[in-house]
């Protein structure tokens, strides 16, 4: 509820600002606005559909011509989603639970590991720093998706198949996160650290008391980044989990929809499930978009 209130407030605030903005706009700006509105509508249409789809009762899903907006919204699809698995021995709540555990662990882990790693990379001239950062920079260009087979071998030989570690550890290896944090930490003035050092602050205190409060935008960004990666990740389930009880929600939805192409059956359920996957991503981004854009300004590869 607090979240909703905050959003409502910020929307109200920006609405009152809009009106003053509109008055000060010239003709080209209004033209731009129209053009962008068209594009934005195009970008958002599919999302609007899916939102409506998820709340449509069965008979509306089969309607011809198809309707964009739901007429009699119902939660039927969501209850169907819950019941779809009640015949088998694993309820969908189990996958949701797995997803929540994996996402929480990976997000917290990534924030801690990322901050710990980015700080020396930005501020300590230790021998080998250039090499380490160079390798991290290079690895941004490697898509881990292509490395499925060797990663499978690594996970298997570590003995973490079918455990939460098997989900979390591969997600933690997110070089983009460390890269963004390091670029942002570069902006923290050295004089500030010097002063704190004179006052006898330890390295740990420097990181926690001085660096972290300054780089909160970047921290928020990598929180979102690892949250999204973890929450919509189905790869680790497909590759490293043989035990169905250890699989995550996106993987379950994938299996639910694998035969969905060109049929309407179960589209409602699939829409409901993908809405569950999509909404947390959207909300967490909405709450911190300003910080993200602030961080991305320092994303440049220099």
């Amino acid at each position: 509820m607090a979240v909703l209130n905050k959003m409502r407030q910020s929307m109200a605030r920006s609405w009152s600002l809009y009106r003053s903005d509109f008055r000060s706009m010239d003709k080209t700006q209004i033209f731009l606005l129209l053009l962008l509105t068209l594009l934005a509508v195009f970008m958002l249409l599919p999302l609007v559909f899916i939102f409506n789809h998820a709340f449509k009762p069965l008979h509306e899903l089969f309607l011809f011509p198809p309707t964009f907006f739901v007429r009699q919204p119902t939660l039927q699809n969501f209850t169907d989603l819950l019941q779809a698995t009640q015949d088998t021995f694993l309820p969908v709540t189990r996958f949701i639970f797995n997803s929540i555990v994996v996402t929480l662990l990976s997000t917290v882990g990534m924030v801690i590991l990322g901050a710990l790693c980015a700080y020396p990379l930005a501020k300590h001239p230790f021998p080998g720093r250039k090499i380490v950062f160079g390798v991290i920079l290079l690895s941004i260009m490697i898509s881990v998706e292509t490395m499925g087979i060797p990663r499978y071998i690594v996970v298997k030989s570590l003995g973490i198949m079918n455990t939460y570690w098997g989900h979390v550890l591969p997600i933690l290896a997110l070089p983009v996160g460390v890269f963004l944090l390091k670029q942002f930490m570069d902006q923290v003035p050295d004089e500030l650290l010097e002063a704190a050092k004179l006052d006898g602050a330890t390295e740990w205190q420097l990181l926690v008391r001085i660096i972290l409060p300054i780089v909160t935008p970047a921290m928020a960004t990598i929180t979102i980044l690892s949250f999204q990666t973890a929450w919509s990740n189905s790869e680790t389930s497909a590759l490293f989990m043989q035990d169905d009880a250890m699989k995550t929600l996106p993987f379950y939805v994938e299996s639910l929809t694998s035969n969905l192409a060109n049929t309407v059956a179960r589209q409602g359920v699939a829409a409901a499930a993908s809405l569950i996957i999509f909404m947390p991503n959207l909300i967490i981004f909405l709450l911190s978009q300003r910080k993200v854009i602030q961080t991305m300004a320092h994303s440049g590869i220099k």
Partner: protein
Amino acid sequence: MSNEATRVVRQPAAARSPKLKGSLGRMLQDKMREIWRFRLSYLFIAPFLVVFSLFIIIPVFTGVALSFTYFNSIEFPKWAGWMNYQNLFSQDVIFLQHVIPNSFKFALFVGPIGYVLAFVLAWLIAQLPGTLRVWYALAMYAPSLTGGIAMVVVWQVMFTGDRTGYINSFLLKWGLIDQPMLLTIDKDYLLGIMIVVSIWSSMGLGFLAILAGILNVDRTLYEAGRIDGISSRLQEIWYITIPMMKPQMLFAAVMAIVGTLKSGGIGTQLSGMNPTPDYSGQLFMNHIEDFGFTRLELGYASAISIVLLILTILLSRFLWMLLGPKEDE
């Protein structure tokens, strides 16, 4: 302990290493001492580096090693030399006739067009008044949030093959077609649909980086430019905006390349078939998965991933030359 480390942190390197032209042993000893001074730094970066090595470095090297073997996941890998690569480029008809042309077409459209589109959109959004910006940026960025499975559901609903699908119903209504088309399993349409869907969902981190870069350009530069004779907005973009935000452009370009070359699942997911109908949507990733997880020829699949990896790095390097920091900067 940590105090000692902090004290040396900011001293210039020259001050730290004593003047020595002595033996190799002395130099080594000194190096070791310097490393010991920074032990805390190493401790800090260690946890990430462990995970990073385990799941990125080691897999890359394992992949390279496997690509020179015959490996069926049961027996121990047998050395095969360049065999996998030779077969890939001389005998693999599917790879040569479908995967390469498809990937080329797909990458050409999604990569450069998606990138230019991201820049144009970001620039247009940056011209808007501040409060509006956020919401338009969000509208462009939201599709990339659907990533993976949610995206497929979204588009399957749109492309449903009978008349209840949105696209089909729309085309029927305007009399463009007489009968509903099975769009996503038609080999003539699949690749096109994949391209549209990929561009739609490609406004991710790279797009945000470009937007932030444009917003960050110093306003006074534009005024200075006007005095120096820049007359149009296009000139402004070309002479001021782009040069000022090269680093962000490079980051976005790298993200675009990686994002484009790693996509593959989308064809299978849209059509619901693997391999895709008549291999019309077969990309590098599908080929890797086909050999790696269906035919269990892991050595061969690794060879394909290594080719893809080298391609990604070469392309990124090429862009680095275009946009990266120059010697004199």
